[in-house]
Structure formats: structure tokens, C-alpha cells
């Protein structure tokens, strides 16, 4: 692949200009196409035709709104695919409506993003997961969909875990014997890559130096082990030779948009069609570089549902702008906001709350 096709190419200044224009246009598009979205904008003081100076001035929706409301900007008969994600509570599920065009666009942009780090060709692929993932219908939607989506980027898929979720050393050895001398792709959730692949590779002296690891899912499950991103990268490099490691951040509510860690591991980067804004949790104003806050994600991809400007429930911090591996902002995710809980007379709270 060539640098020209990279989706990590726009400086912040360029991005600010194009995103403001495109996101403002998208806001008007969704206003016209979704009565629910129009009502929200009207209620929160963003009437039609309002001018915006900065991307940060555009109205955001809390991402969890998609768990309670069917928000879409296409007629029912044009809905091609409904994506769902189970939240941590299990009961709440986001519903994301895609028409044909949006489904194609998200796939295209995801490919362009991932190919920035793996190149244009499908590589032999090691999956830090179990094939049983696709047999268990219950767990399929959450983890399985993520794995399945990434499988498109590889070939000769080999699972690190057997059907009983135990490391399958023979399978990994076989894979490495066949493909280990050329670039190969490794995909898995962060905690699984650590618990199953790292430990296996270290103990069995496996050579992963030609691997490109793409992982996601957060560090919460690794807190007990005192493993953060730096330690993760250091130990993989030291004990397995694996140095090409890319964490990424994304959510089903902005399907197709993934924020990818740069080669040097100094933060996540935004593809050209997206950006992040960090907000103060009290004033909700944008905070300066270096100040932690709540992450807002913007992307020009969501056209079939009003998910182009979303306030996440993740805390994060921007480390720098136009100063890293790739142009634009580089940032880290610091964790999730705690879930608000109320006490009261009733054991359970009905309705949307």
C-alpha cells in the first residue's frame, strides 16, 4: 500500500475544516430524516439553520440513547442490517440501523483503516479466541461479531484456543511453522491476547516477531495483573519478539470508525473522517490537551442513523496534536464512567432509566 491511500493523513487544521462542514451537513440531513432526532435538537436549543463555528459546538447525543430508542434516518424498507451490541449489563442493547450504502461505506472505511497497519493483502491470521465462539449463540453477538468482522482481513485462520477455551499449542505451533517467517496478523481482545497468547508464547518460546497484533477491549480485566499499555508492549517485544502492536478503540454505535494506535504506541489516532473531543465532566466544554475528561467521538460515516456526534461513557485524554506517528490528535482511553445508580423504595426502575 502507498502513503497516499492512508486514512491517517489529514492535519488537525484540515480535518477541522472538512469535519465542520460535513458534520454540519450530516446534522441537517439527520434532522430532516429522523423526527426523533429533530425533536431532540429542537428541545436542546439547536434549531434548524443554526451556524456552527467549531466541531465542538455541534450537538452531541449520549451514546446510550441508542440502547433505549430506535433512532434512524432511513425508511423502514431501506433498512438493510440492524447491528446490536450487548452492553455490560446485558439487558441493554444498542440498535444501529444501516441501509445498503451505509453498510458498504462502513466496511470500506474499516478496511482502509485496518489496511493502514496491515497493508493491502490478506495475511495469514491467528485469532486469540476459540472456534466455539460461533457455536454458542448466546455469546456470539458480542465477542463473535467482533471476531467475525476482523476475520475478513486475514486468511488461513487459526484459533489460539481450543473448543474448551484452553490454549491449543499444537495449532499455534503449526501456524507459526507454516506462516511464521512472513508477516502474519494476530487479532484478539486485549485481555485474551495477554492471558492466552502472551503467556503461551513466553512459556513455549514462540517467535511472534513477524506478527502484527491488533487488539481492543480495554485494560480493566488486566488491572489485577498490573499490565498497562506500555507494559503490554514491552513484555510482548521482550519475550516474544512481537513489536508491531496496534490497540484500537471503536464502538458499534459508530461502526466502521476505529481509532488505531500508532506504530510507536504513543496513543490512538483518528482516521481522517473522524475525530475525538474531550469534555469537562462538569461544564461539558472542550478541555485543553493533557486534561482528562469524557470522550466525544465524531465521524462522517453514520448517515443512516444520527450517530455522527456521540458522547461516550469513556474517560480519556488527548496527549498531543499533529505531533506523533500520524497527523491529528493522539489520545488514550482512561476507563469508563461509573454507571449511575439510584436508591429508592423500588427494587427496580422501570422504563428507560
Amino acid at each position, binding site marked *: 500500500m502507498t502513503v497516499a491511500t492512508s486514512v491517517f493523513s489529514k492535519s488537525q487544521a484540515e480535518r477541522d475544516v472538512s469535519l465542520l462542514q460535513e458534520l454540519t451537513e450530516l446534522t441537517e440531513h439527520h434532522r430532516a430524516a429522523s423526527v426523533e432526532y429533530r425533536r431532540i435538537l429542537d*428541545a436542546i436549543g439547536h434549531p434548524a439553520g443554526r451556524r456552527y463555528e467549531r466541531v465542538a459546538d455541534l450537538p452531541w447525543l*449520549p451514546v446510550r440513547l441508542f440502547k433505549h430508542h430506535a433512532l434512524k434516518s432511513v425508511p423502514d424498507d431501506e433498512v438493510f442490517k440492524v447491528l446490536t451490541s450487548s452492553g455490560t449489563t446485558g439487558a441493554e442493547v444498542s440498535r444501529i440501523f444501516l441501509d445498503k450504502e451505509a453498510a458498504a461505506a462502513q466496511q470500506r472505511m474499516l478496511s482502509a483503516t485496518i489496511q493502514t497497519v496491515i497493508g493491502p493483502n490478506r495475511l495469514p491470521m491467528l485469532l486469540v479466541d476459540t472456534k466455539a465462539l460461533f457455536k454458542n449463540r448466546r455469546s456470539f453477538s458480542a465477542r463473535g461479531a467482533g471476531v467475525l468482522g476482523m476475520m475478513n482481513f486475514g486468511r488461513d485462520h487459526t484459533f489460539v484456543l481450543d473448543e474448551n477455551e484452553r490454549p491449543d499449542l499444537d495449532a499455534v505451533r503449526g501456524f507459526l511453522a507454516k506462516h511464521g517467517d512472513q508477516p502474519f496478523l494476530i487479532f484478539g481482545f486485549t485481555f485474551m491476547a495477554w492471558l492466552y497468547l502472551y503467556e503461551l508464547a513466553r512459556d513455549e518460546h514462540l517467535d511472534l516477531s513477524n506478527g502484527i497484533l491488533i487488539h481492543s477491549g480495554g485494560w480493566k480485566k488486566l488491572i489485577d495483573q498490573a499490565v498497562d499499555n506500555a507494559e503490554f508492549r514491552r513484555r510482548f517485544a521482550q519475550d516474544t519478539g512481537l513489536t508491531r502492536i496496534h490497540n484500537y478503540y471503536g464502538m458499534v454505535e459508530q461502526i466502521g470508525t476505529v481509532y488505531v494506535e500508532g506504530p510507536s504506541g504513543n496513543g490512538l489516532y483518528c482516521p481522517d473522517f473522524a475525530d475525538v473531543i474531550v469534555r469537562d465532566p*462538569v461544564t461539558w466544554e472542550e478541555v485543553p490537551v493533557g486534561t482528562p475528561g469524557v470522550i466525544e467521538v465524531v465521524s462522517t460515516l453514520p448517515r443512516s442513523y444520527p450517530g455522527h456526534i456521540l458522547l461516550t461513557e469513556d474517560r480519556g485524554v488527548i496527549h498531543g496534536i499533529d505531533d506523533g506517528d500520524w497527523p491529528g490528535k493522539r489520545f488514550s482511553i482512561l476507563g469508563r464512567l461509573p454507571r449511575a445508580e439510584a436508591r429508592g423504595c*423500588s427494587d427496580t426502575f422501570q422504563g428507560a432509566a
Partner: protein
Amino acid sequence: MSTVEQRFPTGAPTSVSDLLAEVTSEPPGGRLRVGDPRVSDFLVAFARRLLAPSVARRFPELASLGFFLRRGELEKTIAAATPPLGQLRFPRGVVFHVPPANVDTIFVYSWALSALAGNPNIVRISSRSAGAAVAVLDALNTTLADADPAIAQTQRMVTYGRDDAVTAALSQGCDLRVIWGGDRSVTDIRRHPLRPSARDVTFPDRSSFAVISAAGWRAADAAARRDVAIGLYNDSYWFDQAACASPRAIYWVGEPEAVREARDELFGLLAEVVESKGTEVDAAMSVEKRVSTYGLAAEGVASEVRFAGNAIATVELVEPGLVPRRWLGVGTFPQAQVGSLDDLVSIVERRDQTMSHFGFGTDELVGFAEQLAGRGVDRIVPIGDALTFSSVWDGYDLLREFTRLTTVQSR
């Protein structure tokens, strides 16, 4: 036979049959009677511990409980239940209390009144209980040292897991079952049959609202207006606005212009109260409020959603009848303007519990209650008193529910 963990009095795990046998056998000094001094002495001593500054500072809701259990209050409650000539009031029998799991102190009120009525009580304490509930259990156990042995024998608080066998056995063994915790909890517990002679007192899901007269507001002086703001603050922020009696909507009665003026002033004052109390509504709750209020807008229920910081959100309802009733996050106030109290009659539902008010005369309030005729709203109290527990609750006169009457006629 399944066992239960004994939280008050603390003790080794015991079986339900032993528990029932112990509480129903006659204690030394005779069976408890209505208003038994052994119980009231215990409750008064317990109240004193709740009112101790160290406890009251940590859990202000326990101080209210302490006030409720002062000797004078208990005597008033007993006096109010004095039966007419020719009738005698006696304890009902074994009372099984199922309080809400998500820690509330409300169960202490229901237990205390039932104990005051002379009943042996078994209270199920959630294994998830923490904070104020634990402080209550500590205070009860400490108070026990100087109490009559009849208390320890007949008053029991126990914890058990999701054990249907225990619930079933206690349901079979009691004369009255008191179920708090809302619709789901009531439906769940009701799967277990009672003895034919026994019955339930249930506290299903409820919601509440406030009404303010714009004319009354205009007539009030600055101090009275500030008191309304403080009262609204206490009613709303104390239990994260999730108590059944916390207002989940405000209706303004009056002309639109006068209402607008009064509303702006009240929320300005409320912001000052929030500020002075140092109330912090964190980011997660603020997001929760946006999810719920933006949702109301999406549904076409809200025409305007405004945030004054994280602590206060106001929601303009498209129509007064579209009141959401559900919990929207602490400090969220859906509002609507109506011409008169009469306009609310058709909006009120059975599940509406407390109407807190400001600016109305007694006649107006009584007239409104008569129009409702019991179809909804069990309490009409001034703003600021919404959470003040009373022995009449949810339409029940609890001391009467916890007792039985014997009629004696002679020729």
C-alpha cells in the same frame, strides 16, 4: 431445612421453624401488647442512638427516623389508635417484612410500628444491605444490651439468599406479610401462599409530583420562597429523587406569564440551595439525565430540555398528561403549566402517591382530594415534607393494619 443468618439480634444461623417457634412463644413478662412499654422504651433508646451526632452526620435520613421514634411521637401514634368504647385493640400476630433490597431505611419504620403494635416481627434484610441499613442494625444491637429480653426474643432481622424455601416457610408462618420494594418484588413474593387467615400489606411502585400556585408564589415573601426551594431540594435530592415520594414532575397552576416568572425564580433559588449544600452530581449521573431527557424529547414528550449544570435539569412537557413518572436521574424536573388544580384530576393515576404543594389554601387542597376521590394520590403535603414518613402511608393506617379489634358488648 434452609437456615437464615441472624442480623438482629446477632446470632448463629438458625432454621425458619426454630425462628418462628421462638418469636411466637410467650416471653418472660408476658406477651407484648399494643403500645407495650418494653417496646417503646427500646424504640426510644434506639432513636437516641440514631440521633447521636456521629450517626446523624453520616446518615441524615436516620435522624428523621430518630425523630419519628421519639417518645412523644410514639405516644401520639398509640393515642390515635385508641379504639372506641366496646372495642379492644390487640396485636395481629407474626408479621413478616420484606423490605426493598436496594437499601432504604423505610423498613425500619414499618418494623417499628409493627413492634409498637405488639407483634412478633421477622424482617428480611437484604444481603446487599450497606451504609445506613448497617448503621441501623448496629444501633439496634447496641440498644439491645439494656432492653427487656422480650425484645430479643420476638423481634428478629435475618438475611438469606435467593432461597424460595425460606420465603415460603415465613409466608406460611406469618399472620401478616408486609412487602416493600415495588411491583416486581410484590409479584415475586406473592407466589408464596399465606395461611388463609393471613394477608398482605403491599407497597407497589409509586410516583409523586409537586404542584405550585403561581399566585401563591407571587403572594409569598422572599423567605417563604426560599423555603420552597429548600423543601424541593430536600424532597428531590435526598434519595437521588428515586424515593416513591420524591417529586418526578412539577405542575404550575396559573397564567403562563406568572408561571414563567415563578418558575425562573424557583430554579434560580434551587441552584443557590444546591450550591450552598455542596451537592455534586457526577458525570455518570449527568449522562444518565441526558439519556433520559433526550429520550423524552425523542418520544415527543418533552419540547424543551435545559441543563443548569449537572445538578439541575428542567424538562418542558408537551402536555401535562405526558408526565413520565419514571426515574430520570437526580435533579430532573419535568414541568407543565395548567390553569387550575382541576386540570390535574384526569391526569392523576392510582400509582401517584404524594402530591407536595405550595401556594394553595386548605379548601383548595381538600376540594382537589375530594374530586380525586381516592383514585390516586394518598398524601397531600407541603413541599419539603414529601419524604417525612407517617404512620399513615400509601393509604394505609399502619398501626391499624398491624393490629386487630375485638368487640365486647354486654347486655
